[in-house]
């Protein structure tokens, strides 16, 4: 069927995103009070109320079937809605338009639209909603906290301020299995260099006793976290998808490029602040740092987040928000950390190159795989290209990514170790393995391979890449 006009593909996109609390406007005519945040804001008030009401009704209705597990999503032809109750009575709803194909018709008739209702995965977008909340909480604390300190007005203000910016950075079309995992990529390192980093962290924390926690990253990969795992998980997400990409462009720019930040005249080291003052020498410099909330023994604690980077090594220092940070402190930190971190960064780089040379970069077969360990949140993907600020590129077709997501759903359903092998439409084989808390997904492109060969191939991969962990065959 040769047709003049091409089919037009539309990726999933964000239709609306809102947060409400049904207890805030229980009476007729006060429904608007329930709404704490609504995107897009220009929607007419009554429609907002209607949409919120609908969600409320669905959640209420489904609760009758299972009081402990209310509805998580609603599938319709055109879109899909995700419900999430992060704190009691606070609901976050995200509405995503299904991907669609627009087929032009002959004879000038309006083109037909085909919605691909089954393309979206609940697990992926459910995870995206949860991530939205976690990110809000990282920078603002819980909804309840805002309510306590400033009532609904403050909460609305905070939500507005945070989500207005944050929603623009959501790229729903490139969400996939990695969003479900929300893992952390760890930097491979030899023991000695790791101990040097330990030593560095301990010394800095000792001499700058204000520092409560430290995290250390290299090449956007984690090496050390003084924070607990769940806090590190979301901070890592923020650092790698938002903060670092924003600062990498000037670094990549040439020496004389105007993009490059003015080197502060310090030739002894390459250290600089990624949060807080851009230039310590600037008399106008402000010593304000973003504040984050992390879990503490008694609820939450608020911290200044100082991110300091020298070459590819980044150290995050967290200091109680009760302390006011001064120019003197920042200068002291710069003077102490800058030279050491510069040295350490070049040490790590050197060690890394040596290790690479030993193991031989091209020796390992080019498997496409995703690995995730629920226990330490370690993730590794050879499918994803380097993340940038805007998009996360994958090197495989979205159909295959969807198969991975489906296998993941199957794994989530049972506790047993499993292995699933799928022959995809396009000559690809997809293998999913689950052993204890670990999951491994492999994509093989072997046209005429049979099941046994595929199995052998995966065994080979496990033997080369995962020989140092207990991974059942």
């Amino acid at each position: 069927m040769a047709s003049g006009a091409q089919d037009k593909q539309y990726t999933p996109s964000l239709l609306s995103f809102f947060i409400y609390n049904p207890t805030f406007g229980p009476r007729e005519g006060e429904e608007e009070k329930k709404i704490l945040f609504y995107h897009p804001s220009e929607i007419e008030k009554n429609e907002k109320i209607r949409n919120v009401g609908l969600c409320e009704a669905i959640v209420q209705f489904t609760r009758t079937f299972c009081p402990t597990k209310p509805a998580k999503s609603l599938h319709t032809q055109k879109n899909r809605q995700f419900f999430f109750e992060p704190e009691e009575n606070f609901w976050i709803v995200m509405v995503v338009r299904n991907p669609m194909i627009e087929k032009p018709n002959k004879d000038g008739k309006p083109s037909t639209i085909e919605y691909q209702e089954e393309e979206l995965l609940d697990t992926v977008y459910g995870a995206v909603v949860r991530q939205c909340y976690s990110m809000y909480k990282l920078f603002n604390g819980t909804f309840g906290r805002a309510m306590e300190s400033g009532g609904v007005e403050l909460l609305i203000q905070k939500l507005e301020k945070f989500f207005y910016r944050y929603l623009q950075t959501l790229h729903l079309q490139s969400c996939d299995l990695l969003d479900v995992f929300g893992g952390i990529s760890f930097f491979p390192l030899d023991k000695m260099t790791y101990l040097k980093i330990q030593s560095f962290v301990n010394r800095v924390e000792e001499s700058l006793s204000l520092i409560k926690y430290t995290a250390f990253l290299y090449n956007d990969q984690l090496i050390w976290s003084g924070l607990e795992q769940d806090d590190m998980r979301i901070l890592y997400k923020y650092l790698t998808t938002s903060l670092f990409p924003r600062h990498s462009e000037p670094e990549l720019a040439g020496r004389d490029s105007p993009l490059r930040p003015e080197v502060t005249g310090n030739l002894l080291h390459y250290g600089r602040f990624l949060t807080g003052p851009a230039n310590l020498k600037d008399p106008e410099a402000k010593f304000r740092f973003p504040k984050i909330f992390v879990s503490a023994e008694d609820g939450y604690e608020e911290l200044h987040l100082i991110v300091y980077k020298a070459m590819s090594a980044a150290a995050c220092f967290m200091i109680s928000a009760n302390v006011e940070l001064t120019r003197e402190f920042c200068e002291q930190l710069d003077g102490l950390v800058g030279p050491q971190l510069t040295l350490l960064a070049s040490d790590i780089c050197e060690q890394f190159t040596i290790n690479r040379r030993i193991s031989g970069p091209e020796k390992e077969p080019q498997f496409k795989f995703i690995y995730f360990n629920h226990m330490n949140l370690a993730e590794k993907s050879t499918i994803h290209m380097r993340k940038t600020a805007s998009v996360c590129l994958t090197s495989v077709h979205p159909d295959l990514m969807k198969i991975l997501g489906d296998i993941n759903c199957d794994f989530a359903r049972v506790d047993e170790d499993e292995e699933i092998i799928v022959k995809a439409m396009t000559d690809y084989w997809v293998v999913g393995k689950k052993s204890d808390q670990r999951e491994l997904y492999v994509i093989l492109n072997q046209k005429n391979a049979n099941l046994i060969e595929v199995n052998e191939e995966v065994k080979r991969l496990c033997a080369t890449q995962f020989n140092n962990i207990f991974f059942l065959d």
Partner: protein
Amino acid sequence: MAEEHYLELSENPVQFEHASSVNNVFFDEANKQVFAVRSGGATGVVVKGPDDKSSVAFRMDDKGEVKCIKFSIGNKILAVQRTSKSVDFINFIPDYPHTEFTQECKTKNASVLGFCWTSWNEIVFITDQGIEFYQVFPDKRSLKLLKSQSINVNWYQYCPETAVILLSTTVQGNVLQPFAFRNGTMTKMTKFEIELPVVPKPAKLTLSERDIAMATIYGQLYVMYLKHHSRTANSPGAEVVLYHLPREGACKKSHVLKLNTTGKFALNIVDNLIVVHHQSSQTSLIFDIRLKEPDCAVNTHQPVLPARSIHPYRIPLSGPAAVPTQPPVPCQLYSSSWSVFQPDIIISASEGYLWYLQVRLPPTVHLLQDKGKLMDFLLRRRDCKMVILSVCSQILDGQEKGSLPVVATVFDKLNQVYKEYLEAEQSYTAAMESGPSRGGGAQKRPVRTQAVIDQSDMYTHVLSAFTERKDVSHKFIIAVLMEYIRSLNQNQITVQHYLYELVIKTLVQNNLFYMLHQFLQYHVLSDSKPLACLLLSLESTYPPAHQLSLDMLKRLSTANDEIVEVLLSKQQVLGALRFIRSVGGHDNVSARKFLDAARQTGDQMLFYTVFRSFQQRNQRLRGNPSFNPGEHCEEHVAHFKQLFGEQALMKPSTV
């Protein structure tokens, strides 16, 4: 105030009758014996040595004033010099004739300055015109000249440890000619010149015997020259200049010790330290030539510690004259009647005491603020172990708590020494294993000095108590443990399991499981079976420990049985079966163990599967699916029959 006297006189001095008009006292540096000669020997000679064995008393005829008296090594032959021409000998070997015999010096018109024994029967005469080396034949009561050398001699010094005699020659006396003696041979070593601060005109003897001493320091022979302050040179004080005298090759000026003061000095060597006594201030300084001075020119040294006097000493009034109620009398230190001998001897002839000078290490700890330098200093001392360990404890808690970089420096210094010892031990073992024939015979087993502070020392005396302290933050405790582990790793020393246990215990007590997890992830805590078992025991409080433990067992690759046990205990029977098959151990495992576990799960299908799997194995191995009696599976066979019926059992294949 803390105790600051870092030098002391030995507790039990050698006592002898003090010098008087009728009693002459002589000291022999070679045998460290004091001779008290009464009335030229007629009324008795009492010899006191460092121990009772070397103490002797005897009589000899008074044949004139005794100028010098010494036993040969082992108290075999006594030599007495009474005139400037000859030396007399008396045998002390039982059954040998006891009558004296005499040897005159060979050189005409020469006068004997003195003599030195170099072995039990070899003696060197030093005359103003040269030296004569003799062998004594006590049975024949005669001497044979082995070798002689003529040279003008002003004075001489003898170092018994190395058997080297140093002669002062030339008019000014500052050209020194050393000779070495060994097994009947005499070797002339390279002569050298001492730089004098002022060259006198006209030339006259300027270099005094008193200003030169010889001693071995760190196994090397040095000539020490006490260079007095001169007004013309712009030096602020006197110096001690050290000349290194190697067995072969030229003597070189190697170290300069700055005394920063002037006056009368005396030198001792104690535990490889150079002690300089200053009489007018009644204090002593110590120098360590191995201690590098960062702010000085290469081999110029400042005193290690501030000047302090020797620890006050009280003379115990013992012996027949002692009255019990009388308190001990304080001894006058730095008295002008003291004579100082090498290496560590101080004699008060007028009071009749011989002391050994000793270094007390504990006071040095407070006097040396720089802990790195303190460690360098302590690690070279003989009885240093407990002091070093106490310094380690000190820098970890209390008022003198050091910062992490200081702690790290101290650890690095300890482990450097520890590593050198381990390496020496290793190469010794390797040499022994390759057989003594292959030139390994010469290799000596390395000596473990007190400075070798190993992990068990640190654990027992420092770390285990430190980690128990409640007043120290756990952050600091962990940082210190990691610093110690880092230092060991940096020196390629295998870390002992008990240190890991300490780390884990501290982390677990403080609920820092995620930290522990990260350490394991980067293999900071090296894999071992005990560690894996320890992790398994943590599973109930920290579930991920299970995975960490299994991973570790897997990496060990010698712990397959343990992995099976772990999986079976978790009722992961199929997992265990799959694992044992993947490592090729399926044929040898106990079927009963698996069947027990499968039956315990209560899952009948699982039991069926496992049972059949073992029947297949039996079939493959023995051509028959039934179990051997030795496998003790009767109970399970019965259970299987009961569940699934007789006909479900695999029949022996007829093929």
